[in-house]
C-alpha cells in the first residue's frame, strides 16, 4: 500500500516539476516538440532509477560503514556522472538506434537537478531499497507527464495571438502556473 502511495504522490500530488521545482531546465528548454520531450522523459526515467539504486548502495554500503556521510554530495554527483557515461557507452555499442534517439539528451542529464534531488531525498526520507525504486520511478513518470503536458500546450501556443512581450518564455511560465494550480487540486491524494 505504501508503495502505491509513493507512486501516486510522486506522479501527481508531489509532482517534481510543478510542486518541488526540480528538473526545470529540460522542462523549459526541451518542450518544443513531442519527440524530444518523450525521448528526454525516457532517458531521465532510466537514469533516475538506476542512479537511485546505485547511490542508495553507495550510501549504505560504503559511506555509512566508513563514517563519511558528509561525502554524500560529492559521491552522488560522481555516481550520476559515471552512470550517465556508462549508459552512453553501452547504448552506443549495443543499441545504436536507441542511442540515436536518446544520445543528445544523455550529457544534459548529468546536470538535471531532479536526478540529484531524487537520490538525496531517498536518503533524507529513509526509504528502503524497494521504496527507493518506486520513488525514483514515480518521479520520472511525473517528470515525463509534465513534459508531455507542456509540449502539447506549447504546440497550441505557437498559433495563438499573444501580446508581443509575452511571447516565448513568459507565457510558458504562466501556462506552467495554471497547470500547477490544477495539480494543487490533487493535494492530499496518496496520503
Amino acid at each position, binding site marked *: 500500500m505504501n508503495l502505491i502511495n509513493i507512486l501516486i504522490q510522486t506522479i501527481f500530488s508531489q509532482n517534481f516539476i*510543478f*510542486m*518541488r*521545482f*526540480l*528538473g*526545470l*531546465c529540460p522542462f*523549459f*528548454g526541451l518542450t518544443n516538440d513531442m519527440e524530444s520531450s518523450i525521448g528526454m522523459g525516457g532517458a531521465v526515467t532510466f537514469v533516475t532509477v538506476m542512479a537511485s539504486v546505485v547511490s542508495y548502495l553507495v550510501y549504505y554500503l560504503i559511506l555509512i560503514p566508513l563514517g563519511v556521510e*558528509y*561525502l*554524500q*554530495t*560529492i559521491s552522488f*554527483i*560522481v555516481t550520476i*556522472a559515471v552512470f550517465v557515461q556508462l549508459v552512453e557507452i553501452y547504448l552506443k555499442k549495443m543499441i545504436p538506434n536507441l542511442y540515436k534517439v536518446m544520445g543528445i539528451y544523455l550529457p544534459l542529464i*548529468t*546536470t*538535471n*537537478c531532479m536526478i*540529484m*534531488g531524487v537520490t*538525496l*531525498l531517498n536518503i*533524507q526520507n529513509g526509504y528502503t531499497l524497494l521504496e527507493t525504486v518506486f520513488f525514483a520511478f514515480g518521479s520520472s513518470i511525473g517528470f515525463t507527464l509534465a513534459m508531455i503536458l507542456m509540449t502539447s500546450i506549447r504546440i497550441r501556443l505557437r498559433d495563438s495571438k499573444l*501580446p*508581443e*512581450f*509575452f511571447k*516565448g*518564455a*513568459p*507565457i*510558458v*511560465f*504562466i501556462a*506552467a*502556473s*495554471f497547470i*500547477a*494550480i490544477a495539480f*494543487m487540486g490533487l493535494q492530499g491524494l496518496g496520503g
Partner: protein
Amino acid sequence: MKNNLLKIFTKGLFIENPVFILMLGLCSVLAVSVSVINALGMTLAFTFVIVLSELTISLIRNWIPKTLRIPIFIVIIASFVTILQFLLQAYLPALNKSLGIFIPLIVVNCIIIGRIESFASKRPVVESILDGLGISLGYGIAIVLIAVVREILGSGSILGIQLFGSSFQPALMFILPPGAFLVIGIEIGALNAFMKKYNKKVCSR
C-alpha cells in the same frame, strides 16, 4: 583594461542576467523565493560556491586535460558545496534548514558549470573572480525581485515584518508553487516590454 574588467562585472547584471535572460538555474530560484530572507541566503551560498570554483579552476586551467574537464569541474564544485554545507550547519543552522535540499543541489546548478566551461577555464584569475561576482549579483537581483513580490502578496510582509494590519488577508497562492511560475512569467514579460520600449528610444535618437 579597467573598462574591460568593469564590463565583465556588469554584463551579468542585466545583458546576460542568468535568470531573466538566459533562464538557467531556475530550480533554486523558484523554490527559495518564498521569502526575501531565503532569497538573500541562497544568493550568499551561490556566491560562495561560484566565486571559489571559478577562482580555483582559473588557477589550474592550464593543467586540466580537455577530455576530463567536466568531471574535474563537477568534483571541484561539489567540494566547495560540501564545505559550504559544513559552514552553514555550524554558523547558520536556521538558514540551512529552510534552504534544505537546495544547498546540495547547487552542485547541479547549470549557471555555475556554464560559467566555468565558457569563462573561468579560459581566462585569468582576476577576470574569473569578477565574472563570478557579477553573475551572482545578477542572480541575487533576479531572485530578490521575485521574492519581494511573492512575500508581499503571499504573506503580507517583507523581511518578516508585517506591512499591513491584522485584517489583511494574504493571497496564499503566491507562496505556493503556482505563484512562483506566475510571478517570474509576468516579470520576464514586463522586462521584455521595457526592453522593447528602451531599444526603440535608443534607435530613434
